[in-house]
């Protein structure tokens, strides 16, 4: 076989794998939009569900997911960025910190249902938060923490050493150097981690199944100790638990589309913030 032919075969092969992925994602998107769009209207978005979700809207599920995402980021971002700063700027590189890194990476690979059980045991039962927004948010935060830590640490390490040295040489304390001359330049990377976290937190079902999600709760939560409905769980209910699953099929599509739009919207917002920081702190 001539090297030219080989080259053509390999190029087409690689192109095919990429196109295959795009095709699958495109198919899913088109399918969901095609079937979901007719269902979505003002009532669907703003009304309470009726008859176990077979009728009415999905408003409380939208609100619930929004609360959970907000709670998750509120908890995971400070903890994640905090430990990333510690690992990247303060901790020495030795066996202990390598072990910590290994633990974090391992944590990223733990199945989400395990996080759910962990959250049930620790936050719901042991701490007595009950099935609540609080317990669900902390559980989701534990799940997205590894992603946020790893991306944040990489973002911090990407800031040139000379920024730190230059600052320290002027008499800055370590924290001053980090705060004024390292952290701002890693914001865009940190926000990338947050975007990934948001996507997972909004879409996961297993961790909230046992810690917060309500099967059918046609009212809005009054406090962080209330249960909520959530879009992915609602979708799961409609698809598998509902007595008349085929009848509520359009509602499933509608819910899926709303979830997709919500995640996309949140990510888009984060991307806009990120590009703002990119422009402001270019280097």
């Amino acid at each position, binding site marked *: 076989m001539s090297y030219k032919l080989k080259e053509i075969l390999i190029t087409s092969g690689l192109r095919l794998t990429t196109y295959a992925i795009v095709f699958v994602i495109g198919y899913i998107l088109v399918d969901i939009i095609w079937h979901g769009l007719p269902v979505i209207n003002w009532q669907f978005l703003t009304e309470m569900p009726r008859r176990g979700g077979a009728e009415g809207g999905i408003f409380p599920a939208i609100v619930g997911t929004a609360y959970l995402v907000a709670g998750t980021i509120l908890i995971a971002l400070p903890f994640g960025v905090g430990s990333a700063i510690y690992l990247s700027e303060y901790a020495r590189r030795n066996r202990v910190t390598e072990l910590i890194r290994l633990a974090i990476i391992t944590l990223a690979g733990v199945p989400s249902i395990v996080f759910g059980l962990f959250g049930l045991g620790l936050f719901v039962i042991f701490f007595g938060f009950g099935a609540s927004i609080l317990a669900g948010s902390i559980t989701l935060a534990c799940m997205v923490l590894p992603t946020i830590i790893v991306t944040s640490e990489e973002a911090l390490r990407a800031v040139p050493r000379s920024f730190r040295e230059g600052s320290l040489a*002027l008499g800055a304390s370590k924290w001053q150097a980090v705060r004024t001359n390292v952290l701002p330049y890693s914001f865009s990377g940190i926000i990338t981690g947050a975007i990934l976290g948001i996507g997972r937190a909004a879409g996961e079902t297993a961790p909230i199944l046992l810690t917060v999600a309500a099967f059918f709760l046609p009212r809005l939560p009054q406090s962080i100790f209330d249960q909520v409905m959530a879009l992915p769980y609602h979708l799961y209910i409609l698809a598998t638990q509902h007595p008349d699953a085929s009848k509520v099929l359009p509602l499933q599509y509608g819910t899926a589309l709303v979830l997709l739009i919500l995640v996309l919207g949140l990510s888009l917002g984060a991307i806009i913030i990120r590009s703002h920081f990119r422009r402001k702190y270019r280097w």
Partner: protein
Amino acid sequence: MVVKVKPTDTAIEVAELNFYYGDTQALFNINLSIPSKMVTALIGPSGCGKSTFLRTLNRMNDIIDDTRLAGTIKIDGTDIYESGMDIVSLRKSVGMVFQKSNPFPKSIFDNVAYGPRIHGIKSSELLTEIVEKSLERSGLWDEVKDRLDDNALGLSGGQQQRLCIARALAVQPEILLMDEPASALDPRSTAKVEDLIGELKEDYTIIIVTHNMQQAARVSDYTAFFYEGSLVEYGVTSNLFTNPKAKQTEDYITGRFG
């Protein structure tokens, strides 16, 4: 050029200094006194320890893991390695200019104002005054006064290095450490930086690491020759270059190695 050496005070007194990176010893029993308000050049082949020595003077080596130091370095009579030493105030009084000019990706103004700001100066009039004075002192004012809000990375290499000098001056140090400040600059920019060093020594004690022997001869009053972690020879620059005592010094300055 005849270098007039007037009797002066000692700015830095180094005694029995040994320095280690992990198990590797980088400096061996260094003893020297650096005179105040003069330029002292540190020369020697790559890896001889001159930069390491320079960085012991503002404790910049502290930020490298697994380093160890024995001996004393006294600045104004205080051992800067004694426990309880305030590193922030040390680095405030011992400024540093790096080999690769490292302006922060901020405006020219914010670069120079960086030091004063972290030391708590908030008044914008005062900051403006400090920035102007520092930039004037480093000979950059006329070139940048109309674009103080521009990003410092838009300056030329030589301008960037003089900006870094201005930034160091803005915290009003007494001693200025320069780690090959002109090694990445073209000849004209180098000449400007060298002229600047000549002007600055009226007010500052300057210690400069350089690979360029002509530069050491041009700008310095005293020269220290380092070789393999030891201080081989130290003396008045004109004497050291015209009449080196040690064989290694002679070989190095005549270009036989290095």
